[in-house]
């Protein structure tokens, strides 16, 4: 399969990349790891006239502490997320999730910025970032701004990004030490998107859940924040009746498509099971 013709640009600064994206307008697409865009170009479902390769922009790389947050450059690959000692100790759910994305070859290339900015409901990081209440740093010709992950997704491939804008970093508030988190994903095979998946981040106090965030992946037009399920577990010690209520509340907000991964009713049920498993594992991992 041969992609359509395009012109290739390789800027070395964010300022140059943003200028190119603004000047070239709708005909240009930024290129990160390329493992969503290039297959679409080979199918001619995407036919950009210009590709702006972000690979040579050093300032888009790296993982660092910034106050009470950890800031991850948009071009940081899943392989680098997995290898990061800082993330493994402070935000282990990011490593756990990265290991469930695609396959080894794809993880060398796939980036956190591409994963969150593409707006594909099958991507795993949007739900995780919503559960962590992360924000995306965005650069455009009008300057920079920050948008919360929870406010970023409007629909499938439809996000808060304006034409000419790009995500430059993901800023994750570090959850308190002793928090528990888990990402549970059912997939048919290595490399597949989730049949359904759930992320949970919680804190415990005196054996009860103090705060909990629960999100769902690939059972709607965007990742979903399961607020009723969150309310159902707060203040409880996660007994069987609470787990059942939380799973039911999560299932109620799903609207998956029937596809090769199964009929919609099955995928909804799987979402509930993923919520149960992620809650139980996060609860067991949390101190307090």
């Amino acid at each position: 399969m041969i992609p359509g013709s395009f012109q290739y640009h390789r800027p070395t600064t964010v300022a140059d990349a943003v200028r190119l994206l603004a000047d070239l307008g709708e005909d240009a697409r930024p290129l990160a790891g390329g493992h969503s865009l290039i297959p679409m170009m080979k199918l001619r479902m995407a036919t950009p006239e210009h590709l702006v390769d972000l690979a040579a922009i050093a300032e888009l790389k790296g993982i660092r502490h910034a106050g009470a947050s950890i800031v991850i450059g948009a071009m940081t690959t899943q392989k680098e997320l997995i290898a990061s000692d800082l993330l493994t100790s402070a935000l282990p759910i990011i490593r756990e999730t990265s290991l469930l994305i695609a396959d080894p070859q794809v993880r060398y290339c796939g980036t956190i910025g591409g994963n969150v900015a593409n707006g594909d409901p099958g991507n795993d990081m949007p739900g995780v970032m919503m559960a962590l209440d992360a924000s995306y740093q965005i650069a455009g010709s009008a300057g920079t701004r920050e948008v919360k992950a929870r406010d970023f997704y409007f629909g499938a491939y439809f996000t808060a990004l304006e034409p000419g804008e790009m995500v430059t970093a993901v800023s994750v508030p570090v959850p308190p030490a002793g928090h528990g988190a888990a990402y549970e994903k059912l997939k048919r095979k290595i490399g597949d998107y989730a049949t359904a998946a759930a992320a949970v981040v919680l804190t415990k106090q005196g054996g009860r859940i103090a705060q909990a965030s629960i999100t769902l992946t690939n059972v709607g037009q965007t990742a979903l924040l399961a607020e009723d399920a969150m309310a159902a577990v707060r203040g409880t010690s996660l007994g069987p009746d609470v787990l059942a209520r939380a799973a039911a509340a999560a299932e109620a907000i799903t609207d998956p498509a029937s596809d090769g991964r199964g009929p919609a009713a099955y995928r909804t049920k799987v979402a509930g099971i993923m919520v149960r498993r992620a809650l139980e594992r996060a609860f067991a991992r949390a101190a307090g």
Partner: protein
Amino acid sequence: MAKKIPVSMTINGRLVEEMVEPRLLLIHFIREQLALTGTHIGCDTSHCGACTVDLDGMSVKSCTRFAVQADGSTITTIEGMAAPDGTLHALQEGFRMMHGLQCGFCTPGMIMRAHRLLQENPDPTEEEIRFGIAGNLCRCTGYQNIVKAIQYAAAKLNGTPFVEAAE
């Protein structure tokens, strides 16, 4: 047609300087422009791993990367694995000795992926090998002998005895 642009990269130790159209995929560059046909096109959709090459210390599916993205990089393909005198690399020997292939179509990608895996983890467990080659599909072997071939190569490279696990 977009204008051709120059790229240079080191492939199997040889400096290559060529003009490419931006839309030229790395796999087509390697197979058609450089006539290195050991790297295979399998699914052409970044699932099967037959097109895997080693690029700057990464295992990369060359069907999902443009040649222009590889400008300045160092690449090893299956042709770069054996010694110049033809002596097989430990992985090639392992695939031969352990019958790690039947039709052989996936083998170049398997070997290139296993090569990087052993660079990163010289003494992997069976589970680590299976997780490490999860991006490479084989429709013949059922993977059993591929895993053994990689264990054979790891032992040879580490200078330790190869002990075949009981079935």
